[in-house]
């Protein structure tokens, strides 16, 4: 079993989900290679080479891989796939965009967002916003899989770095053009990698009021999250959304503030180790998944909590 993991990176570093995908890959086969493709990404390749269990790095650099466009990356991966039994990527925005394109080019039915590996051809994946778990078996000659990071520990570091082999790029498909990203700089931890998350919902009421959430988060060294309702209302940008179609998180501590607990939100956080819910509505469905819940007005409870910590 030879597994190729497609690394998500920003050129310098690997994104958090990649190390979890390597751990999942290890359950499918022991011969693991990682593809690091991008524009000027040698540093990311060196980081990948130090991941435990990785045997080889394939590094491919070209200007047309800037922005990791799915059209160009899929054209690069398709001919490489013949040498592997499995192609694996994190089920992040990156992997979700890229891997179905790769799978279709290979005439393979992708297995999305797996949370467990039962055997090299059998996987467990959440469906219906995590309200059911399906065990699925693939008969395709190559398994194309995306991995839910919260289902697998991140691969550690190995003492010896794996060798890096440079490979030549495919031609530019010329179908799409990357025109940059709008990214808000933040000193807070990344949502999907945070040990503690404080999330706000519709109850927070406004973008200004999110300062209360942020003050609590900073006291705890936590990441800030938001429910879909808070994002739809413009309190926070889309990258903060936790839920079925936003980010899936499972921190040690998740504090939900002013979040009622719609099915699609619970789907994104119910695997957190400890869940705290603060809501003035005693009937809020979020309480059903909370370890500790406090029925109180958040504008009173949150500043008090920030002070007590």
């Amino acid at each position, binding site marked *: 079993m030879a597994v190729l993991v497609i690394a998500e990176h920003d050129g310098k570093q690997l994104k958090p989900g990649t190390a979890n995908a390597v751990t999942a890959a290890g359950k499918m086969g022991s011969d693991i290679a990682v593809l690091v493709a991008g524009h000027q990404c040698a540093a990311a390749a060196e980081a990948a080479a130090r991941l435990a269990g990785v045997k080889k790095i394939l590094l491919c650099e070209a200007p047309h891989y800037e922005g990791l466009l*799915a059209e160009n990356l899929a054209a690069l991966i398709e001919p490489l796939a013949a040498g592997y039994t499995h192609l694996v990527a994190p089920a992040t925005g990156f992997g979700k965009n890229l891997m179905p394109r790769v799978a*279709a080019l290979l005439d393979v039915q992708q297995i999305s967002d797996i949370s467990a590996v039962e055997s090299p051809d059998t996987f467990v994946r959440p469906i219906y916003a995590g309200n*059911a778990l399906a065990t699925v078996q693939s008969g395709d000659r190559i398994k194309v899989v995306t991995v839910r990071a919260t289902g697998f520990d991140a691969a550690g570091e190995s003492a010896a770095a794996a060798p890096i082999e440079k490979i030549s790029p495919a031609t530019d498909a010329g179908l799409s053009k990357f025109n940059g990203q709008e990214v808000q700089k933040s000193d807070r931890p990344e949502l999907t990698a945070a040990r503690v998350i404080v999330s706000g919902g519709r109850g927070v009421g406004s973008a200004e009021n999110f300062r209360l959430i942020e003050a609590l988060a900073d006291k705890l060294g936590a990441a800030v999250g938001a429910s879909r309702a808070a994002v739809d209302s413009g309190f926070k940008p889309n990258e903060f959304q936790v839920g079925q179609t936003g980010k899936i998180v499972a921190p040690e501590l998740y504090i939900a503030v002013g979040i009622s607990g719609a099915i699609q939100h619970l789907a994104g956080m119910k695997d957190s180790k400890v869940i705290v819910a603060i809501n003035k509505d005693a009937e809020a469905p979020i309480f059903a998944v909370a370890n500790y819940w*406090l029925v109180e007005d958040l504008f009173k409870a949150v500043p008090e909590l920030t002070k*007590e910590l």
Partner: protein
Amino acid sequence: MKVLVTVKRVVDPQVKVRVKSDGSGVETANIKMAMNPFCEIAVEQAVRMKEAGIVTEIVAVSIGVPQCQETLRTAMAMGADRGVLVETAVDVQPLGVAKVLKAIVEKESPRLVIMGKQGVDDDNNQSGQMLAALLNWPQGAFISAIAINGDHADCVREVDAGLEKLTLKLPAVVTADLRLNEPRYVTLPNIMKAKKKPLEIVKPEALGVDVTPRLKILKVREPPKRGAGVKVADVKELVAKLKNEAKVI
């Protein structure tokens, strides 16, 4: 410009599904069904582009059981001009969906295909990207804005880090994310009008497409339940519990 939109019939997202006792799937009999919310956003986008004079015709496509005609009628009540149902009793998986849609695209020759980014039932998030691959068209997955500029579409995508700007050469496939628009409610007069719009029914075999599922579903089970929590009286008690009992702070 002609646009193709796709609509999937799913269990109403407000309904909490139950796993069947024999572990073969989730209970869908006698359960309220609805148009997949992301597909509603896709239809709305097409209708707004038609209202803006960019789009001349909207063809809505659904794949599945005869009841998907209702989903197509909803799309037509929102403003789609006609519907195509690819009727099958098979629970078609994304690769099969993409192959069916490719056959329809080749027949209809749209300049743009707008789809929902994922079905809220199977949560696969694949079909749009797969269709783009099979057509060798560019893809704009998870878009929150789109503008047609000549032979290009300028898109804004919702990505993990924030927003990403992309220019796609037309024809292209795009998939709608939540913030693309807020779908309209259908009105009674429009529902009546939609009943008179043309709805064509074809079978996958007539399109030359094999929709046999590739993934075998071995079993479906309930996720592990969380233990019952405790209500705390005030912030002081909460902090004490988190420190001494849960030991997470």
